[in-house]
Protein backbone atom coordinates (compact mmCIF):
# COMPACT_ATOMS: atom_id res chain seq x y z
CA UNK A 1 0.00 0.00 0.00
CA UNK A 2 1.35 3.45 -0.76
CA UNK A 3 1.37 6.31 1.73
CA UNK A 4 -0.41 7.66 3.64
CA UNK A 5 -0.35 5.11 6.46
CA UNK A 6 -2.56 5.05 9.51
CA UNK A 7 -2.17 3.19 12.76
CA UNK A 8 -2.34 3.19 16.51
CA UNK A 9 -1.82 1.30 19.73
CA UNK A 10 -3.58 -1.86 20.91
CA UNK A 11 -5.95 0.03 23.20
CA UNK A 12 -6.85 2.83 20.79
CA UNK A 13 -5.58 5.78 22.87
CA UNK A 14 -2.83 6.62 20.36
CA UNK A 15 -3.41 7.08 16.65
CA UNK A 16 -0.91 7.93 13.97
CA UNK A 17 -0.94 9.20 10.42
CA UNK A 18 2.12 9.06 8.17
CA UNK A 19 1.99 11.24 5.11
CA UNK A 20 4.88 9.89 3.04
CA UNK A 21 6.55 6.63 2.04
CA UNK A 22 8.96 4.63 4.23
CA UNK A 23 12.67 4.44 3.42
CA UNK A 24 12.70 0.74 4.28
CA UNK A 25 11.85 -1.83 6.91
CA UNK A 26 13.86 -4.29 8.96
CA UNK A 27 13.67 -6.98 11.62
CA UNK A 28 15.95 -6.61 14.66
CA UNK A 29 16.88 -9.33 17.16
CA UNK A 30 19.06 -7.23 19.45
CA UNK A 31 18.48 -8.12 23.07
CA UNK A 32 16.82 -4.82 23.87
CA UNK A 33 14.35 -5.22 21.00
CA UNK A 34 13.52 -8.72 22.25
CA UNK A 35 12.76 -7.25 25.68
CA UNK A 36 10.40 -4.55 24.46
CA UNK A 37 8.77 -6.82 21.85
CA UNK A 38 7.67 -9.73 23.98
CA UNK A 39 10.58 -12.05 23.19
CA UNK A 40 10.75 -11.97 19.41
CA UNK A 41 12.33 -9.39 17.12
CA UNK A 42 11.26 -5.81 16.56
CA UNK A 43 9.93 -4.88 13.14
CA UNK A 44 10.28 -1.26 12.10
CA UNK A 45 9.80 0.94 9.06
CA UNK A 46 11.88 4.09 8.79
CA UNK A 47 10.07 7.36 8.09
CA UNK A 48 10.94 11.04 8.12
CA UNK A 49 10.00 12.33 11.57
CA UNK A 50 8.25 15.30 10.00
CA UNK A 51 5.87 13.03 8.12
CA UNK A 52 4.36 11.61 11.33
CA UNK A 53 1.30 13.06 13.03
CA UNK A 54 0.41 11.46 16.35
CA UNK A 55 -2.51 11.98 18.68
CA UNK A 56 -2.78 10.59 22.19
CA UNK A 57 -0.35 10.38 25.06
CA UNK A 58 3.06 8.83 24.45
CA UNK A 59 5.62 8.13 27.12
CA UNK A 60 9.35 8.12 26.33
CA UNK A 61 12.11 5.87 27.62
CA UNK A 62 15.62 7.12 26.94
CA UNK A 63 18.79 5.08 26.70
CA UNK A 64 22.25 4.89 25.19
CA UNK A 65 23.06 2.66 22.24
CA UNK A 66 26.30 0.66 22.02
CA UNK A 67 27.45 3.40 19.65
CA UNK A 68 27.12 5.93 22.44
CA UNK A 69 24.23 7.70 20.76
CA UNK A 70 21.23 8.68 22.87
CA UNK A 71 18.10 6.76 21.94
CA UNK A 72 14.45 7.27 22.66
CA UNK A 73 11.64 4.70 22.61
CA UNK A 74 8.10 5.96 22.61
CA UNK A 75 5.12 3.92 23.75
CA UNK A 76 1.45 4.40 24.59
CA UNK A 77 1.11 5.58 28.17
CA UNK A 78 -2.20 3.75 28.52
CA UNK A 79 -1.44 0.29 27.08
CA UNK A 80 2.35 0.15 26.62
CA UNK A 81 2.25 -0.49 22.84
CA UNK A 82 5.60 0.49 21.35
CA UNK A 83 4.92 3.13 18.68
CA UNK A 84 8.29 4.39 17.46
CA UNK A 85 11.91 5.00 18.36
CA UNK A 86 14.85 7.03 17.23
CA UNK A 87 18.45 8.06 17.77
CA UNK A 88 20.01 11.44 18.48
CA UNK A 89 22.44 10.62 15.64
CA UNK A 90 19.63 10.84 13.08
CA UNK A 91 16.94 13.05 14.62
CA UNK A 92 15.22 13.52 11.26
CA UNK A 93 14.22 9.83 11.15
CA UNK A 94 11.88 7.69 13.24
CA UNK A 95 11.57 3.90 13.31
CA UNK A 96 7.86 3.08 13.51
CA UNK A 97 6.87 -0.37 14.80
CA UNK A 98 5.14 -2.33 12.06
CA UNK A 99 2.66 -3.55 14.66
CA UNK A 100 1.43 0.00 15.16
CA UNK A 101 0.41 0.36 11.48
CA UNK A 102 -3.04 -0.56 10.22
CA UNK A 103 -3.17 -3.46 7.81
CA UNK A 104 -2.92 -3.97 4.97
CA UNK A 105 0.08 -1.64 4.87
CA UNK A 106 2.23 -3.64 2.45
CA UNK A 107 5.48 -3.05 4.36
CA UNK A 108 7.70 -6.01 5.20
CA UNK A 109 11.20 -6.46 6.59
CA UNK A 110 13.96 -6.34 3.96
CA UNK A 111 16.90 -7.27 6.19
CA UNK A 112 17.52 -9.00 9.52
CA UNK A 113 19.77 -7.32 12.09
CA UNK A 114 21.56 -8.54 15.23
CA UNK A 115 21.19 -12.25 14.52
CA UNK A 116 24.11 -12.75 16.92
CA UNK A 117 21.80 -11.89 19.82
CA UNK A 118 18.86 -14.02 18.65
CA UNK A 119 17.81 -17.00 20.79
CA UNK A 120 18.65 -20.50 19.49
CA UNK A 121 15.04 -21.11 18.42
CA UNK A 122 14.85 -18.07 16.13
CA UNK A 123 13.97 -18.73 12.48
CA UNK A 124 15.00 -16.28 9.77
CA UNK A 125 13.50 -15.76 6.32
CA UNK A 126 16.20 -17.27 4.07
CA UNK A 127 15.32 -14.77 1.33
CA UNK A 128 16.49 -11.79 3.42
CA UNK A 129 20.04 -10.57 4.03
CA UNK A 130 21.22 -11.20 7.58
CA UNK A 131 23.66 -9.19 9.66
CA UNK A 132 25.28 -10.44 12.87
CA UNK A 133 25.04 -6.90 14.23
CA UNK A 134 24.02 -4.11 11.91
CA UNK A 135 25.07 -3.11 8.41
CA UNK A 136 27.98 -0.73 8.19
CA UNK A 137 27.62 2.58 6.47
CA UNK A 138 25.34 5.55 6.77
CA UNK A 139 21.85 5.15 8.15
CA UNK A 140 20.26 6.81 5.17
Amino acid at each position, binding site marked *: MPAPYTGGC*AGGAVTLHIAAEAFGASQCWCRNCQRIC*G*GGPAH*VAIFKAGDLAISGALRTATGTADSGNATHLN*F*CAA*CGTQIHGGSAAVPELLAVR*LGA*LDEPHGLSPKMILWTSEA*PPWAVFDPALPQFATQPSGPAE
Partner: protein
Amino acid sequence: MTYTGQCACGAVHFTITAAPIAVRQCWCRRCQKMAGGGPAHNAMFPTEALTITGPVAHTGYTADSGTAIHWDFCPTCGTPLLAYAPVARPHLRAVRLGVLDQPNDLAPQMVIWTGEAPAWAVFDPAIPQYPAAPPAPAPKAN
Protein backbone atom coordinates in the same frame (compact mmCIF):
# COMPACT_ATOMS: atom_id res chain seq x y z
CA MET B 1 13.99 -24.53 38.36
CA THR B 2 14.33 -20.75 38.71
CA TYR B 3 14.09 -18.08 36.05
CA THR B 4 14.96 -14.43 36.56
CA GLY B 5 14.27 -11.44 34.40
CA GLN B 6 13.71 -7.74 34.06
CA CYS B 7 12.22 -5.10 31.81
CA ALA B 8 14.34 -3.01 29.44
CA CYS B 9 14.95 -0.20 31.94
CA GLY B 10 15.43 -2.42 34.99
CA ALA B 11 12.56 -0.98 37.04
CA VAL B 12 10.71 -4.31 37.09
CA HIS B 13 12.28 -7.61 38.16
CA PHE B 14 11.02 -11.18 37.93
CA THR B 15 11.72 -14.36 39.82
CA ILE B 16 9.95 -17.54 38.73
CA THR B 17 10.38 -20.73 40.71
CA ALA B 18 8.77 -23.31 38.43
CA ALA B 19 9.01 -24.76 34.95
CA PRO B 20 6.55 -23.38 32.40
CA ILE B 21 3.43 -25.35 31.50
CA ALA B 22 3.70 -24.25 27.87
CA VAL B 23 5.60 -21.83 25.64
CA ARG B 24 3.82 -20.40 22.61
CA GLN B 25 4.44 -18.01 19.76
CA CYS B 26 1.27 -16.04 18.95
CA TRP B 27 0.62 -14.11 15.74
CA CYS B 28 -2.85 -12.79 16.61
CA ARG B 29 -3.25 -9.21 15.48
CA ARG B 30 -3.39 -7.87 19.03
CA CYS B 31 -0.13 -9.60 19.93
CA GLN B 32 1.51 -8.16 16.81
CA LYS B 33 0.55 -4.68 17.98
CA MET B 34 1.94 -5.28 21.43
CA ALA B 35 5.08 -7.00 20.11
CA GLY B 36 6.24 -4.39 17.62
CA GLY B 37 4.91 -6.14 14.52
CA GLY B 38 6.06 -9.71 15.05
CA PRO B 39 4.57 -12.42 17.24
CA ALA B 40 4.36 -12.48 21.01
CA HIS B 41 6.22 -15.25 22.84
CA ASN B 42 4.56 -16.38 26.04
CA ALA B 43 5.65 -18.83 28.71
CA MET B 44 2.78 -19.99 30.90
CA PHE B 45 3.75 -20.36 34.56
CA PRO B 46 1.77 -21.23 37.69
CA THR B 47 0.68 -17.94 39.24
CA GLU B 48 2.13 -18.81 42.63
CA ALA B 49 5.61 -19.36 41.15
CA LEU B 50 5.89 -15.74 40.01
CA THR B 51 7.30 -12.86 42.05
CA ILE B 52 7.40 -9.38 40.50
CA THR B 53 9.01 -6.32 42.06
CA GLY B 54 8.72 -2.76 40.80
CA PRO B 55 5.89 -0.65 39.42
CA VAL B 56 3.51 -2.36 37.00
CA ALA B 57 0.89 -0.70 34.77
CA HIS B 58 -2.24 -2.54 33.66
CA THR B 59 -4.36 -2.61 30.56
CA GLY B 60 -6.84 -5.15 29.32
CA TYR B 61 -9.50 -6.19 26.88
CA THR B 62 -12.19 -8.79 26.31
CA ALA B 63 -11.18 -11.60 23.97
CA ASP B 64 -13.46 -12.88 21.19
CA SER B 65 -14.26 -15.77 23.52
CA GLY B 66 -15.62 -13.32 26.10
CA THR B 67 -12.69 -13.93 28.44
CA ALA B 68 -11.34 -10.85 30.23
CA ILE B 69 -7.61 -10.56 29.57
CA HIS B 70 -5.24 -8.40 31.57
CA TRP B 71 -1.91 -7.15 30.24
CA ASP B 72 0.80 -5.73 32.47
CA PHE B 73 3.66 -3.53 31.26
CA CYS B 74 6.41 -1.43 32.75
CA PRO B 75 5.13 2.15 33.08
CA THR B 76 8.66 3.50 32.73
CA CYS B 77 9.84 1.78 29.54
CA GLY B 78 6.70 0.12 28.16
CA THR B 79 8.19 -3.38 28.19
CA PRO B 80 5.38 -5.95 27.94
CA LEU B 81 5.60 -8.09 31.09
CA LEU B 82 2.78 -10.62 31.25
CA ALA B 83 -0.79 -11.46 30.34
CA TYR B 84 -3.43 -13.31 32.34
CA ALA B 85 -7.11 -14.11 32.60
CA PRO B 86 -7.89 -13.42 36.26
CA VAL B 87 -11.36 -14.98 36.17
CA ALA B 88 -11.11 -17.74 33.56
CA ARG B 89 -7.56 -18.91 34.39
CA PRO B 90 -6.43 -17.34 37.66
CA HIS B 91 -3.85 -20.08 38.19
CA LEU B 92 -1.76 -19.09 35.13
CA ARG B 93 0.44 -16.16 34.16
CA ALA B 94 1.76 -15.80 30.59
CA VAL B 95 5.17 -14.17 30.90
CA ARG B 96 6.58 -12.46 27.82
CA LEU B 97 9.72 -14.37 26.91
CA GLY B 98 11.65 -11.16 26.24
CA VAL B 99 11.84 -10.24 29.91
CA LEU B 100 13.52 -13.47 31.01
CA ASP B 101 17.29 -13.48 31.37
CA GLN B 102 19.25 -15.44 28.75
CA PRO B 103 20.50 -17.99 28.19
CA ASN B 104 17.53 -20.06 29.29
CA ASP B 105 16.00 -23.36 28.19
CA LEU B 106 12.72 -21.89 26.95
CA ALA B 107 11.62 -22.04 23.32
CA PRO B 108 8.22 -21.89 21.63
CA GLN B 109 6.56 -25.31 21.37
CA MET B 110 3.82 -24.25 18.98
CA VAL B 111 2.80 -21.37 16.72
CA ILE B 112 -0.75 -20.11 17.12
CA TRP B 113 -2.99 -17.70 15.19
CA THR B 114 -1.01 -18.14 11.98
CA GLY B 115 -4.25 -17.09 10.23
CA GLU B 116 -3.61 -13.51 11.35
CA ALA B 117 0.13 -13.47 10.54
CA PRO B 118 1.42 -11.12 7.84
CA ALA B 119 2.36 -12.58 4.46
CA TRP B 120 6.09 -12.23 5.23
CA ALA B 121 5.99 -14.28 8.46
CA VAL B 122 8.16 -17.40 8.66
CA PHE B 123 7.37 -20.25 11.06
CA ASP B 124 9.62 -22.93 12.54
CA PRO B 125 8.64 -26.03 10.53
CA ALA B 126 9.63 -28.26 13.46
CA ILE B 127 6.78 -27.17 15.75
CA PRO B 128 2.98 -27.44 15.35
CA GLN B 129 1.07 -24.57 13.80
CA TYR B 130 -2.54 -23.60 14.42
CA PRO B 131 -4.49 -21.05 12.34
CA ALA B 132 -6.29 -19.79 15.46
CA ALA B 133 -6.32 -20.83 19.11
CA PRO B 134 -4.76 -24.23 19.86
CA PRO B 135 -6.78 -27.19 21.08
CA ALA B 136 -7.30 -26.97 24.82
CA PRO B 137 -4.55 -28.97 26.57
CA ALA B 138 -6.60 -29.43 29.71
CA PRO B 139 -10.00 -28.52 31.12
CA LYS B 140 -10.36 -24.99 32.46
CA ALA B 141 -9.98 -24.57 36.16
CA ASN B 142 -13.56 -23.37 36.65
